[in-house]
C-alpha cells in the first residue's frame, strides 16, 4: 500500500466508509499487537488492546490532524490502551518476560536452547522502553524497517541506528550472562 493509497483510505474512512477503515485495521493489526505486547507481555491481551485501539481510533478519527501520520497516531492510541489494560488487568505478570516464557512456544528450538531464549527475554525486558519497543516490533512479526518507520513516525535511518544500538546492548547483556558462545 503506497502512502497516497493509505491517505485515500483515511479520507474514505472519514467520509464514512467503514470498509476503508477495515483495510487500515488489517494493515496495522500486527504492529499494534506488537506494540501492546511491549506493555502487556501477554499475547491475548495484546490482541484485545489492538482491537480496542481500532475502536478508539474509529471514534476519534476526526481528530486526526495529519493524515500522513495515521500510523503513528494509531500507535499512540495503542500505547495508551495497553497502559490502561495493564493497569486494570487482574493477572499480575509484573511485566517480566521470563514469566511469560510459556507464552512463546518455540517448537523449532532445541531443548538446550531454552535457557538462551529465556535469557534473551530477560535481557529484552531490561532494555529501555523505546529500545524494547523497537526490538519487539522488529522480531515479533518480522516487521520491515519501512513499516516500523511508518508506525513509529521516524525515518528508516533513525530506526536503523537505534536498532543497531539496541542489538549491541543485547549482545553485551547476553555476554554478561555468560552465553557469549552463541553470539561470538
Amino acid at each position, binding site marked *: 500500500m503506497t*502512502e497516497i493509497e493509505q491517505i485515500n483510505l483515511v479520507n474514505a474512512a*472519514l467520509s464514512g466508509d467503514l470498509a476503508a477503515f477495515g483495510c487500515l485495521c488489517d494493515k496495522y493489526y500486527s504492529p499494534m499487537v506488537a506494540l501492546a505486547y511491549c506493555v502487556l507481555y501477554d499475547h491475548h491481551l495484546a490482541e484485545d488492546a489492538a482491537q480496542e485501539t481500532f475502536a478508539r481510533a474509529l471514534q476519534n478519527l476526526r481528530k486526526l490532524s495529519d493524515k500522513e501520520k495515521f500510523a503513528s497516531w494509531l500507535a499512540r492510541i495503542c500505547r495508551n490502551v495497553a497502559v490502561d489494560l495493564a493497569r486494570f488487568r487482574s493477572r499480575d505478570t509484573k511485566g517480566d518476560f521470563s514469566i511469560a516464557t510459556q507464552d*512463546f512456544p518455540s517448537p523449532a528450538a532445541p531443548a538446550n536452547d531454552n535457557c538462551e531464549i529465556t535469557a534473551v527475554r530477560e535481557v529484552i525486558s531490561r532494555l529501555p522502553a523505546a529500545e524494547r519497543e523497537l526490538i519487539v516490533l522488529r522480531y515479533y512479526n518480522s516487521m520491515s524497517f519501512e513499516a516500523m518507520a511508518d508506525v513509529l513516525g521516524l525515518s528508516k535511518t533513525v530506526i536503523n541506528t537505534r536498532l543497531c544500538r539496541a542489538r549491541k546492548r543485547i549482545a553485551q547483556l547476553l555476554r554478561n550472562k555468560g552465553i557469549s558462545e552463541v553470539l561470538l
Partner: protein
Amino acid sequence: MNPQNDKKSLDELLSLALGRENLKFDFAKWQNQHQPEIRQFRSQAQSAPAETAVSHHTWRIIMKSPITKFAAAAAVIVAVVLTMNIFNKSIPTVSAAQVLQEAIDAVSDIWSVHMKAQMRTIPHDNFSMIGLNYDFVPIEMWQRTDETGLVQWRVEKPQRILLMDGQTTTMLIRPNNAVRADEPWPLGCFDSWMGRLLNVRDLLDNVLQQAKNNPDQVVTLYHANTEGKDTIVLEVEVKADVPENDYLRNSFISNSDHLNIYQFDARDKLLDAFQVYAHTQNGDVLIFEVTNIEYNTQIADSVFTLDLPKDVIWYQQPQPLPDNQRYEKMTPKEVAQAFFHACSKEDWDEAAKFWSGSKISDPLKKYLGGLEIISIGEPFKSLGYTPHGWFVPYEIRLKKGPVKKFNLAIRNDNPAQRYIVDGGI
C-alpha cells in the same frame, strides 16, 4: 569469529524469543463487537463531510550532512580507535581519520542545510537544557549561504526561536521576550549548541579541539549493514564537565556523561543520523536525535525573517541605579529575600531591580504577586553555572495556594555589578 554469523545468531535468538506467526485480523468479528463505536462513527460522518482532497507531502530524506568536524577529531583520536565487528563486516583497513576526511570532502559543496531533530527539553527554556525524564520536543534548524557568501541560519523549538539574518542575531522567547545583538553571531550562540550541527567546518574544529584536550576520549568505529544499507557508525564518548554531585549534573548536555553517535552512509560518506545518549546509573537515555537532514535545497526567504509581537519586551542588561551601591553590597541570599519580598508586596519597580529583563512581564506578575516567603536557604555554587553566579534555595507559597520549593539562579556579571535573578522561578 565471523561477524556475519554473529548477526545471524542474534537475529535467530531474538526471533525465537519473540517471533509469532502472522496475525490475522477478523474485521467482521470486530464489527460485531463494536457496534456502538461504529454507529457513532457513521453519525459523525453524516454530520460533517470529510475532506476529499489528498494532500500528499513528501519529506525528502537526503541525509547528507555536516560531519566534517569528526575528520580532524579522528586524526587525533585514531590511536584509540577500536574497530568493532559486532554486526557486520568490519573495516580494519580504514581508519577513523580516513572516514572522517571522506565525510568532510563529501560536504565540501554544501550551501544549505535543513535539519529536524528532537530533544528531551522544555519548549521555552534554554536550548541546551535537558531533562532525562522530559518528553521529546521538536527542533528545526536551517542554514544557507547565498551566492555572495552571506550566511543566514535559524534554530527553533516551540517556544524559542533564534535567528541570524545575516546582519543581526535575534532570539524570541514566546510569547514576547526577545534579545537582539546588532551583529551576526555564530551558530551555537545563546546556548544553541545544536545549531553547530549545521556548520560542518565549525563542527569539525570543535571536535578537533575536544579531542586535543581530551586525549583519553573513547571513539568507536564500526560498520553496520541493515536491509542492504551499508553505514559507518562513529561513537564518541564525552565526559561531563561538572562533577557527579553537581546541582546542574544532567541538566545540560555538556553537564552529562554522554555518547555521541554519528552515522554515515558508507556509499556517499555523508552524515546520515546523529544521536546523543546520556549515561545514567539506570542506563543510557536518548536525549537528542536528528531525525531528518536535507542538503542543498532551496529554503524560503521567510525562514530567515522573524515577525516579532508588537508588545515585545527587549532584554537589557541591568544598568547602575542612583543608589546602586546599596544593591551592590547585597549578598545572594539578601537579594533572594528582597526580590521575593518585593513580589509579595507587588512592588514591581523594586522587584525589577533584581530582574534580568528590562521589565517583569504581566504573566510573571500574576504568578509571583502576593506570594508568601516560607524560607530562604543558604546559597551554593555549581561548576555548570557562571563563576559569578549562585543558587539560592527557596520555598514560597503562591497567592493561589501551591507551595514552590526550588533554587533561584542569581548572578552579578553585569554592568551594574549587582546580583540579579537569572532563572529558577
